[in-house]
């Protein structure tokens, strides 16, 4: 493995690991705050119990997310020092803002987790809102930096540095809001369905648990609403990709030859050597329409770009197909749940539906991972689209295979421990002996 590949793999691994926990840190507070609000309104202790159980799980996930995020902020420099030397100041503004958002999130989480006895109920709930807002803001600011890498603005690249830097313009790039909206919705989708699947698993064994029934319904509402909105943000984002990163779009679609009108390829297996995507279902006109809003628009294929500017087509295309497939599937599940509810057949009483939800639990997270693969692999060979190549930025430090293996081991161990602890928390909550009401507010 070359050092460049090891550096890319380690960065990808750290991002893939962190994003799961970051997503939980953003979206779980919403569930907690809603449950707490219902407890405050109704005085029903089941809601309080649920809120406390969710907050315990969140505490574990948040801590792992916080420390793995620290790793990332250092690894930007450990692995890509030349990128940080040149681009650090350009993307610095959103990173500085992210720092403060993270402060807010961590402070509010401390107040939330340990302030049950010390804060007034409404203040306590407000701290939960602070965790959520801090988490959302952190995510949105970090994505501003990523959006700049996809469509740089507010600076000029001269030789080996960026000059004429306008930090505000560099932050407010065209890709920012579509990317941020898409990622936030995906976060609520993944966490909503993740939580729904976990509670479905318990309900299959303990169908009467009112705590888990309510938890499932609430989580499914959050996931379902996100599933409906997600295609809209995806559509907007795709149009920006078509405009700013046409070669990424071509790779996502496995489109080697330019087409006018262009067909949408569903599935298929791109062969870079032969420059053809085999076994795909082709729907005429649809890609032209989705990318440019016109049925006969020309979509540029990979052939129009220099060979050394192609991203890995197979990975980008397959990851995109996986992401879209998951989005469609979870949308279908959401619609099914809405249909069941409309026909007054509570989704939580249908064993087949609970089983389906269990299988869907990891899918949202898989979709997030696939989406980031599209974003990052699809931008290769560039670290800053069209300006700076990834290979120019890698650290001169050698033997990067060693830290790659070390961090792999670290993340695997952490993931196993988190899994084991979460399983314990979840199944303990189903046992009546342990469902004694805990102390409420002082």
């Amino acid at each position, binding site marked *: 493995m070359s050092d460049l590949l090891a550096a890319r793999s380690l960065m990808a691994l750290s991002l893939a690991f962190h994003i799961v926990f970051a997503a939980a840190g953003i979206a779980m507070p919403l569930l907690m705050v809603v449950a707490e609000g219902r407890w405050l309104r109704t005085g029903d202790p089941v809601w309080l119990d649920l809120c406390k159980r969710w907050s315990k799980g969140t505490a574990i996930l*948040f801590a792992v997310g916080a420390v793995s995020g*620290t790793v990332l902020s250092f690894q930007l420099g450990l692995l890509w020092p030349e990128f940080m030397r040149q681009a650090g100041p350009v993307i610095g503004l959103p990173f500085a803002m992210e720092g403060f958002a993270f402060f807010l999130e961590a402070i509010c989480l401390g107040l939330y987790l340990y302030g049950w006895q010390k804060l007034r109920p409404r203040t306590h709930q407000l701290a939960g809102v602070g965790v959520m807002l801090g988490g959302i803001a952190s995510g949105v600011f970090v994505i501003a930096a990523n959006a700049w890498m996809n469509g740089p603005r507010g600076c000029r690249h001269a030789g080996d540095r960026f000059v004429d830097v306008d930090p505000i313009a560099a932050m407010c790039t065209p890709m920012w809001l579509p990317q941020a909206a898409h990622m936030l919705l995906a976060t609520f989708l993944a966490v909503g369905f993740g939580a729904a699947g976990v509670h479905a698993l318990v309900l299959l064994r303990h169908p009467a648990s009112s705590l888990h029934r309510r938890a499932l319904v609430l989580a499914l509402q959050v996931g379902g609403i996100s599933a409906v909105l997600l295609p809209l943000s995806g559509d907007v984002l795709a149009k920006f990709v078509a405009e700013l990163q046409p070669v990424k779009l071509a790779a996502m679609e496995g489109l080697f030859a330019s087409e006018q009108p262009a067909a949408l390829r569903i599935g298929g297996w791109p062969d870079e050597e032969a420059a053809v995507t085999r076994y795909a279902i082709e729907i005429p006109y649809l890609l032209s329409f989705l990318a440019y809003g016109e049925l006969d628009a020309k979509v540029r294929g990979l052939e129009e770009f220099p060979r050394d500017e192609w991203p890995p087509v197979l990975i980008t295309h397959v990851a995109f197909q996986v992401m879209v497939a998951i989005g469609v599937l979870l949308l279908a599940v959401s619609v099914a749940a809405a249909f069941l509810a409309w026909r007054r057949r509570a989704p939580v009483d249908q064993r087949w539906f609970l089983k389906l939800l269990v299988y869907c639990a990891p899918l949202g997270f898989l979709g997030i991972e696939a989406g980031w693969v599209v974003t990052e692999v699809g931008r290769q060979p560039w670290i800053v689209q069209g300006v700076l190549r990834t290979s120019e930025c890698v650290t001169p430090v050698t033997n990067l295979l060693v830290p790659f293996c070390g961090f792999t081991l670290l993340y695997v161990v952490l993931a196993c421990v988190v899994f084991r602890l979460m399983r314990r928390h979840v199944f303990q909550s189903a046992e009546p002996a342990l469902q004694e009401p805990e102390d409420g507010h002082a």
Partner: protein
Amino acid sequence: MPDLPQLVGAVILVAMIVYVASGGADFGSGVWELFARGPRGQQQVRALRVAIAPIWEANHVWLILVVVLLFVCFPAAFAAIMVALHLPVTLMLVGIVLRGAAFAFQSYAAGDHAIERHSVRLFRVASMITPMALGVVAGAVAGGHIRVDAATGAVAPGAVRPWLLPFPLLVGLMTLSLCTYLAAVYMTVETEGPLREDFRRRALVAGCAVGAVALPAAFVAHSEAPVIGVPLLASAWSVPFHVTTGVVAVAALVALGRRSFRTARFLAIAQTALILIGWGVAQYPFVLAPDLDVGNCAADPAVLAATLIVLGAGTVLLVPAFVCLYRVFKQ
């Protein structure tokens, strides 16, 4: 009126002081768990955990702020440090991950005793390694052995590892002892009775250890790290400054001896601030001596100005939030 690079440099220094005084003490409390013994060992452990549980994640963010400010405002220095100190920085990161994750795991073990046992041990060991690695990184940055081409940002491949030298290793030890000292001093304010006496004794020992490491570190700096050592020991401000730091340090120990715990806490924080200010002033104008200074490695003025505005606005949000956090959980 200081110029923009000087201002952000000062802000970075302040953030580092707050990080050592808050997050550093969180590490120190993990070290004290390692040394929790005697008839009240279990009580000590419990008190230490209660003390850091609600605040350690917020305190930890100061480190992220320091890193971000460094790469935004002095990008070439950040890049060179990450190349030259790849190994100790990685070690520090592993320590941070293990410490944070293990603390959360043992707090929410849900009766899984195997995980709890291993997490507790890991938390304690990582609490010791991490500040040590952090200090080694700081010492290597101050040491002046990382040579950088200021024009291209390329790091010269050195014959020796810039961190595997007596000075950085001594700074590592000093950071570790300072963190444990702060933790013990804070605990004297947050406990009572015999437990408080336990921490008072520990604070006195750790306070002497800080002094015992600081003196050789200063002299090694003079011979091995002259870029910082010579200004530190031979400037016009050296004598009054070190006298002040020494007086504050001794006064903190005296306050501990007289059981004026709040005074001791104030003086220990002042001592920490003075140590870091001494480093900052001795190293000025270098960000990464001897090749990168605030003049030749600072980002565009537009970037620095925007960053300072964000810092100002952020502080307006941050201060009340931190005050609220500490009001709720601390005396």
